[in-house]
């Protein structure tokens, strides 16, 4: 393999590694309870939650590892962890 001197790597390139396959439980939103507080977006260790068009938050399942933090910390119980079906 040809290596760069000093091991230089390109920024943000872990995007190539889709970690969604790690998941055994999947977070699903029930938006009727959502107050758009953004706590799920703030806490997600994968930075895979982002604000969508209507101000509701959406998960990029390509990267979500299913840790369950968003669901557990959501103050209104908007997010439910369901068994992943593959």
């Amino acid at each position, binding site marked *: 393999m040809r290596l760069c001197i000093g*091991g230089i*790597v*390109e*920024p*943000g*390139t*872990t*995007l*190539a*590694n*889709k*970690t969604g396959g*790690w*998941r055994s439980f999947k977070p699903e939103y029930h938006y009727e309870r959502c107050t758009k507080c953004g706590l799920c*977006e*703030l*806490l997600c*260790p*994968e*930075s*895979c939650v*982002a*604000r*969508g*068009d209507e101000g509701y938050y*959406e998960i*990029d399942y*390509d*990267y979500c*590892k*299913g*840790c*369950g*933090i968003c*669901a*557990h*910390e959501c103050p209104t119980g908007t997010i439910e*962890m369901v068994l992943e079906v593959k």
Partner: protein
Amino acid sequence: MNQRSPKTQPLFAPGHRGCAGCCNAMAVKFILRAIGSDCIVATPTGCTEVFSTPYPESAWNVPWIHSLFDNIAAVSSGIESALKALGREGETKVVTIAGDGATVDIGLQALSGAFERGHNITYICIDNEAYMNTGVQRSSGTPYAASTTTSPPGKRSIGNPLGKKNVPEIMVAHGSPYVATTSVAYPKDVMRKVKKAVETRGPTYVHIQAPCTTGWGFDTHLTVEIGKLAVKTGLWPLLEITNGEITGVHRIRKKLPVEEYLRRQRRYRHLFTTPEGEEVIRELQEIADRNAEHYELEL
């Protein structure tokens, strides 16, 4: 994929290999959100480095360099000095992000030197209270009685026999103009303190407690909950120390008994099965009570 406003563009990209529910990944996210893209980050070996940068990939969307445990504060000092030599002092923020093993044990000498010389840098310790990346060995950041692979409980051991080294106080003793303790369970507190640290001239220090699902032994969804319990029991006080004076204390409405924190974690499980364990829990309660009294934690 959903729209990302520039505000939420992740400076620490998805696809990293941190465990599900990883505290270090959360800490880095909050740190970079507070600082913004204009910074240079130096990180020694440890989980953060390993899971963020499996060659040839990198999760970092800011200039970032990896170096050794032993010299990471010296690397940051060098970057700051180089900027000065180029007449570009203060053009960007020089930040170290390091684990507890790197900070409180192996890199302490370089850290001390950097603070003695007074470089304009911010050193941030992500303290998950053991050497996690090599499989949970005890560091001097590991709290009293916690089980690690090098402090296993047994007939003649209650777990880690020694207490946690108070490195924030050591940095205060170096004359640092701003030292703070915080926790990944309080993201707004982390961001406010990191921002203050990078905006303060001179060598500043932020120590972030980070509950590690793998090393402490709790389910992945509990990272924030466990972190809050450490604070609410008084075992991990959230402080700000400006020019040697305590200028900020996160007050606790109702201090919880330490058992509430301990029994949720595998690393303290042995304390609940023996009479000696009961005694150790009392000692840990005394530590929490002393913290509460010393820092006036209770409202």
